[in-house]
């Protein structure tokens, strides 16, 4: 009985995968108020219409990719593109194994690997603005960010320690655009993660930090109440392109033709 239940559980995600592989939803875009303050472009950011994967890329999907392009296999990847913990939660270079499930979001992937995956599917990683725009929605509203209850809900996920076992991708209710798992599952790469040059206070002229920047227009936080999104920004701006971590995955995006 227990065995049958376990088998059933194991089969469900596979069925989901076959149906929903690389499933995109279209987002209309528009003028969007970021939590970041862009000194060079004050006011609302203009987001062009784009398509975004409904849910993050899974272990099974990433395994199919590395089988097709062995340059991204754990044993073959160039160290300059992925650090030593790349895909370390898999059993082998061409097997997911017992420590990870096929339908979990793939983690321990570098920006280079995520980028290569999306490129191989004629897609790209979303920009930060696209991600932030999509993630501002809850189940019914396109912009739920002013709602303290919504803020509380996503923040409670960020404040929990990483679960021992990541839930499967695509289990949470879709947001108003039909996108799932932007909060509450894993963190995600953006194409321009290394454009997030955020400093606590960028007005200290002559400060060693400001000297690193060419030109004005550093980013600062415009909405200090939105901790959940600010944590994303802080995390992305601390990463190098070859870094991998146990709770960082990705999904792809596409321009609307």
């Amino acid at each position, binding site marked *: 009985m227990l065995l049958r239940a376990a088998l059933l559980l194991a089969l469900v995600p596979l069925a989901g995968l076959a149906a929903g592989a690389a499933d995109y939803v279209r987002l209309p875009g528009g003028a969007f108020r970021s939590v970041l303050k862009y000194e060079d472009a004050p006011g609302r950011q203009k987001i062009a219409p784009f398509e975004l994967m409904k849910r993050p890329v899974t272990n099974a999907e990433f395994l199919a990719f590395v089988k097709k392009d062995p340059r991204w296999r754990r044993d073959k990847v160039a160290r300059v593109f992925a650090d030593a913990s790349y895909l370390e939660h898999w059993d082998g270079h061409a097997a997911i194994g017992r420590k990870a499930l096929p339908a979990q979001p793939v983690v321990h992937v570098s920006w280079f690997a995520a980028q290569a995956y999306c490129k191989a599917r004629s897609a790209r990683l979303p920009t930060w603005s696209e991600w932030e725009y999509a993630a501002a929605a809850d189940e019914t509203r396109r912009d739920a960010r002013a709602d303290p209850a919504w803020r509380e809900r996503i923040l409670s996920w960020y404040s929990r320690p990483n679960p021992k076992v990541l839930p499967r991708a695509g289990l949470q209710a879709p947001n108003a655009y039909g996108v799932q798992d932007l909060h509450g599952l894993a963190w995600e790469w953006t194409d321009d993660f290394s454009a997030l*040059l955020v400093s606590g206070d960028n007005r200290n002229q002559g400060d060693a930090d400001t000297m690193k920047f060419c030109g004005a227009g550093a980013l600062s936080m415009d909405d200090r109440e939105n901790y959940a999104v600010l944590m994303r920004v802080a995390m992305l701006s601390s990463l190098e392109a070859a870094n991998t971590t146990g709770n960082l995955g990705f999904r792809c995006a596409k321009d609307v033709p």
Partner: protein
Amino acid sequence: MKNGSKLLFVVAFALACVTSAQARKTPLPSDSVYQLDVQLLDQDGKRQPWSAQRGKPRLVTMFYTSCQYICPLIVDSGKAVERQLSPAERARIGITLISMDPVRDTPKALSAVVAKRKLDTRRWTLTSPRKGDVRQVAGVLGVRYRELADGEFNHTSALVLLDAQGRVLARTEKMGSQPDPEFVAAVKRALR
């Protein structure tokens, strides 16, 4: 006697060719930035894979030519390291500037900087990748940047020392005409 030395010269020349050809054929180290498959267009309009710069230690940095603020300092930083080197050391190093603004940094714009800053092109190469490749180049060099609404760029600056195979040996974020002594020491070690 004369023929003998000629033969020796021919043999030595042939051997040298074989060794340098082999050096190119040996697989790149896994941690080499030249693993990145990108093409660079230089100030003379020549387009080559970045990996064609293999073969000698190099200082590499990112910049853009229309930058008013810190970018002139980036060239100063390269020159400051150069000044610390003996003529023999200078002959063994390359200095590569890679633009983050390929749309405006055409060979013409790059060669204007070469002329204005009196850069010795035996060492200095100013290049632009394709626009879609800039963030990958920045990724392997650990440079962060954002294009601003007015076409300027906000970016971190780093001088990166690569060995002949493209492995990062050292980096400094201290820019300007006062060279970072630890970094200069690393450059000298790489040229020994």
